[in-house]
């Protein structure tokens, strides 16, 4: 959502130098909570990067054979094993939920309570579906003998990294879903319009909170893009 007062400031590199040299704020027009969320996401990016880098290093180092993800994660559709089918559906669901979230932010700023609330709910349901499918995948693999400490397909680290990385990602999605349900309720009740004070923080509610939530949700989608590429496809 673009702020017209910012259009008067110079853009590009010169704008960055001006912003950094000015008083009061470096990120012009950026709400404090939004700035905090961005820096938190930067830190969280480092966490997932470290997980994926460790995965890369260990996978490169093992002498045992590494299982073929397209075989391990194939789903039986009408008797035919379709490689990565479940993962493809999960990717579709998460990206769609990202889309509904972006629309929710838009309608939030337009103060269209109903559209905003329904889109937040749609996002939450998308997230819930994703977690459900992830849980199904876990149970299927556990049934086939994959454990964090060993698996019948190849190097034991395959199971370790699978459960750890998807576990962390799934936890992030679950936390997001919980907050989305809370925000959907707040939207429908009109808390953002009224600036109602939060239960824990006692701070006034505002529609920018939905944009902040949106950033977190898109981050969760972003991490999935990387996990999908490096773990399932590679």
């Amino acid at each position, binding site marked *: 959502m673009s702020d017209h007062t910012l259009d008067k*400031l110079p853009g590009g590199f010169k704008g960055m130098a*001006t912003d*950094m*040299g*000015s*008083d*009061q*704020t*470096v*990120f*012009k027009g*950026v709400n*404090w*909570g939004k*700035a*905090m969320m961005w*820096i*938190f996401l*930067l*830190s*969280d990016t*480092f*966490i997932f*990067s*470290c*997980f994926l880098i*460790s995965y890369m*290093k*260990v996978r490169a*180092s*093992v*002498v*045992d054979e590494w299982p073929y993800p397209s075989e391990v994660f194939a789903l039986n559709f009408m008797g035919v094993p379709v490689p990565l089918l479940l993962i493809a559906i999960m990717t579709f669901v998460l990206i769609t939920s990202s889309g509904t979230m972006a629309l929710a932010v838009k309608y939030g700023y337009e103060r269209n309570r109903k559209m905003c609330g329904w889109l937040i709910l749609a996002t939450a349901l998308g997230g819930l579906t994703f977690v459900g499918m992830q849980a199904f995948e876990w149970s299927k693999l556990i049934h086939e003998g994959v454990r*964090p*400490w060993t698996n019948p397909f190849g*190097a*034991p*680290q395959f199971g*370790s*990294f699978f459960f*750890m990385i998807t576990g962390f990602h799934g936890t992030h999605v679950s936390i997001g879903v919980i907050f989305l349900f809370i925000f959907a309720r707040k939207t429908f009740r009109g808390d953002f319009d009224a600036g109602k004070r939060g239960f*824990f*923080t*006692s*701070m*006034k509610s505002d529609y920018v909170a939905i944009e902040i939530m949106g950033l977190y949700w898109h981050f969760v989608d972003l991490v999935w893009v990387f996990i999908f590429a490096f773990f399932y496809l590679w």
Partner: protein
Amino acid sequence: MSDDFYKNKTSIEAQPSRTISDSSGSVSDIDYVKPAEVSDQDLYHGHSFITKWIFCQDAKVIGIQYTLTAVFTGIIGLILSWLMRLQLGFPELVPFITAEHYYQFVTMHGMIMVVYFLTALFLGGFGNYLIPLMTGARDMVFPYVNMVSYWMFFVAVLVLMASFFVPGGPTGSGWTLYPPQAILEGTPGSGAGIILMLVSLALFVVGFTMGGLNYVITILQARTRGMTLMRMPLTVWGIFTATVLALLAFPALFVSVIMMSLDRILGTSFFMPTILQAGEILEYGGGSPVLFQHLFWFFGHPEVYIVALPAFGIVSDLISVHSRKNIFGYRMMVWAIVAIGALSFFVWAHHMYVSGMNPWFGFFFATTTLIIAVPTALKVYNWVLTLWRGNIRMTTVMLFCLGFIVTFVNGGITGIFLGNVIVDIPLSDTYFVVAHFHMVMGIAPLMVIFGAIYHWFPLVTGRLLDEKLGKWHFWFSFLGAYSIYFPMHYLGFIGVPRRYFEMYDSPYITSAVGLNQSITIAALIVGLSQFIFIFNIVKSLRMGKPAGKNPWKANSLEWQTPNVPPAHGNWGDKLPVVYRWPYDFNVPGAKEDYIPQTTPPSEVLEAKVEKT
């Protein structure tokens, strides 16, 4: 300074306080400052005892909570060091200290001092108290999360202390927690001890992320009118850069802690290779211990700069105020802090030259390590040049600053020895390394902490600490610390290994017995002399000389609050407006030898200030 300077003939004129992006005219209005971009902060006000003193959201209270908890933890670390030194110097006196105990002391002393004492004190203690005050904010940007961050730290400390009481005791793997040994039976505390350590670290990281977000965003987004980044005191720059480092480096620690916990609890093999334990083949296999080292030091090296950079920033301000002179080369000092911070992510494996990692890495990391020495040395030159021809007040604060410079130069030079791969090979894992990091990370930042407490005690309590007691404290601490660590370099040179429980009978180590004894005696004396400091604090809290407002005649904003100590909300009804940098000391033409940041140009028209 040229003759013209002394005859007040420089061409520097008083500058109007315009910020760069201001486009409106009005040449005659030299006091113009841009209007506020955001409305005044809507603060939470606690009304009960619990919301005012326990679960308090005021950053000043949180800062004191962090300080007290960190110092308490640090005292435990200090006692552990006495036990270690007793074992090394006079093992007959302490027969109850077994080898297992010794390794546990070594581990807990290291982890406590580096993480739970120094990091918590600099970022949580000084950061929380000083950042809002020095930037002109009323509080941190998210006080609720700030409050939660302290209690996370508190719980992390409790969990860490709990590891002393579990079966097997705390972990004895060294503060570096290297696998595979850390989770195998030969190492003390490989049961519950290591698990509690890992849980405590994870909690610490979560808490410090919450706090760190507050510090960073308050500095970037909540400064008062007129406060540009280049008008912030170096204290804020040091703590800011350290916080950025913390936010980016702690993830690597968090990841390594998670993976080691899984290796221990679930039997995964992230770090565990095929291995025998007391002759029995374990179920592990395929993992990579050196990966843990890379992850740990990717965190660990920025961590030591997280400890050092706030010290650099604070000491710059202390030197400046107590020598009545602007910090020499402020702009370059800022760039040096930022450069050191950025480079610190590219030097980590200089802790791993002898680990068996890819041998080509030594070239890369030795190069980057020597490069990072350049901005660090630049800062040392600038501190010295600030003192040069300054109006130096030999207060206790200034003595500690001088002590910092001396010990930091010493420690920094030995760092150059260790940064070179070939020289590091015989010195690695000897007492040379122990002497190096204690000088540069223990003594030097500790000198700054002491100086900072003597300096800001009048602000926090309204009373001055006793100067005579302070001087005794300084001389005991400084000379004592030198007697401990200077001879230790020699021990390292002759090859005495670190993390050894006993000094054995080999000829070269027998020659070091006397040295170990003298170091132990010095350590005990220095440790005991800290009671002078504690006595000074307790006495001055009740009977110290009332300080009044701004007793050191400093320029920075924290001294300009309407109340001393500052009240909730810091500034009363009106937020301060800033017109200059905090280093306008002894400006030619000015009436006094200092010009606070809130003084508009119209009040000091004859003063020939620099454009800042």
